[in-house]
């Protein structure tokens, strides 16, 4: 009887240990459903097999690549995504690690970093960069945080530790480009999301994690943390990656191409350098309207000084709105291009060479 119990325990432990996978050097946690693991593997293989591609200089600048081919692109992702966990992975209790005494870089945290939401769709996760989140919250609390992945303790001394969570949303039928889960078009769409999340593993000081900004007034998504002001942020990179991969798509139908194009334009529409998106015509109308109100109150106070005490606050309010509109007009008339943020990550991390990440991938492919 004891032998039977022992055997059962051994088999259970063995199956649990072997449920996690390591593909191309990337850890794939047992919390990821097997079918998603297989899909992700095929996506990485597809990326790794990208042929040498002619791209514009902007692509090479934002990705900091001189050559654009599968090995380079896979290496770029690998240096930012080392661990992938599933939607059901619990980041609490025994899985959440904390260690005091770590010395974080004495750089400021990004503004509004704890106000942004997760990258989820409804109640399901699409993809989320846990590493960046753990690093930022840890730095804020001055505690080195980490996760227990299988039996390994993975602390996050830099967002480049590269822990990403994938969920059902990444594979949701409603969000697919076409009905074939493993079509080229859907691989490209998922890889765009992977590049987006990978970018959150970069950055330092005020832009560590390349956190999204609030979309400005006049933008379709105004008020949401779904914009960025840099030319090498997550949305820009996602758009560039989609565009590059689309050029190599051999099986993308016109409908597939159109949907991926809409993803590109949607991503790029979130790169906003101005604090507003009003037109010159609208601003001139606003200025004229506010000027009339201000002039009215100023004349009123001249002829009826006793009314000043009741209505002065109104005058001040409209003077403020007039100044704001005038400042927005000046901003509109001043040409601005998105700035390039230093992507160098802060904290302790190690960079893997192209040859090494390729060797890891080749080893997985030969298995």
């Amino acid at each position: 009887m004891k032998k039977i119990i022992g055997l059962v325990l051994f088999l259970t432990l063995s199956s649990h240990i072997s449920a996690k996978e390591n593909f191309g050097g990337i850890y794939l946690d047992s919390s990821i459903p097997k079918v998603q693991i297989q899909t992700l593997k095929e996506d990485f293989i597809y990326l790794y097999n990208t042929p040498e591609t002619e791209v514009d200089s902007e692509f090479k600048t934002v990705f900091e690549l001189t050559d654009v081919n599968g090995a380079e692109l896979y290496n770029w992702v690998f240096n930012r995504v080392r661990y992938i966990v599933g939607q059901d992975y619990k980041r609490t209790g025994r899985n959440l690690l904390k260690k005091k005494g770590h010395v974080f870089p004495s750089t400021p945290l990004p503004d509004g970093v704890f106000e942004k939401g997760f990258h989820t769709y409804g109640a399901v996760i699409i993809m989320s960069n846990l590493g960046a989140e753990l690093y930022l919250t840890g730095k804020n609390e001055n505690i080195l945080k980490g996760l227990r992945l299988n039996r390994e303790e993975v602390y996050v001394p830099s967002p480049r530790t590269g822990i990403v969570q994938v969920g059902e949303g990444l594979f949701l039928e409603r969000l697919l480009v076409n009905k074939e889960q493993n079509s080229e078009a859907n691989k490209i769409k998922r890889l765009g999301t992977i590049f987006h999340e990978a970018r959150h593993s970069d950055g330092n000081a005020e832009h560590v994690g390349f956190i999204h900004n609030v979309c400005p007034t006049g933008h379709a998504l105004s008020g949401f943390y779904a914009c960025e002001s840099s030319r090498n942020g997550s949305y820009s990179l996602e758009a560039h990656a989609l565009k590059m991969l689309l050029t190599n798509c051999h099986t993308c139908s016109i409908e597939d191409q159109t949907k991926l194009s809409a993803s590109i334009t949607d991503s790029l529409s979130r790169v906003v350098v101005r604090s507003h998106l009003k037109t010159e015509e609208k601003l001139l109308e606003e200025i004229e309207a506010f000027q009339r109100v201000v002039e009215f109150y100023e004349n009123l106070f001249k002829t009826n000084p006793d009314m000043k005490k009741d209505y002065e606050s109104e005058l001040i309010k409209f003077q403020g709105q007039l100044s704001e509109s005038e400042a927005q007009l000046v901003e509109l008339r001043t040409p601005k291009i998105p700035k390039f943020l230093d992507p160098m990550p802060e904290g302790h991390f190690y960079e893997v060479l192209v040859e090494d990440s390729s060797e890891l991938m080749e080893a997985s492919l030969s298995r």
Partner: protein
Amino acid sequence: MKKKRIFLYVFSAFGLAFSIIMMGQEEILIEKIKTQSSALKIISSRREQTPFQISKEDNLNTELVSLPRVSDLKNLNEHEIHHTPEIILKGASVVGRIHNNAEQLPSKRHEAMLFFKNCLEDENIAIAIRAVCLNKVYTLIPKWRIPILIEEDKISLELKELAKELF
């Protein structure tokens, strides 16, 4: 009495004959209109160098109305907007299908081009979709050899830049 009856019969016969003649005329008129319409279509397809008049009441209006509006995006929640929203993908699917159908059937190309024009000029439609429509106009004008007039005051610099990013 007999005279009255004869008069009545003759009058009725005249009336009947008149109706038949008028109906015939109407049918001829309908045929003429149809012929003229066909002629117009043939003429317009031959006059490929001349921009044709655009009317918002033309076909594919249902599809146009189904495209996502800016107001639809504002109604999404925090979770739904972080990556390309479903409504954008659905709208792109509509645009893509219309393009594909027209690619397969050349007779549908004028209609498709009109759809793209109406799409890109509608300031209420989400800019991601408008940019796709504008890009399609840029690429399909020389390919399908269909010239089209675009109302420049409805296209912002931002829209043009987004459309050009797809080249």
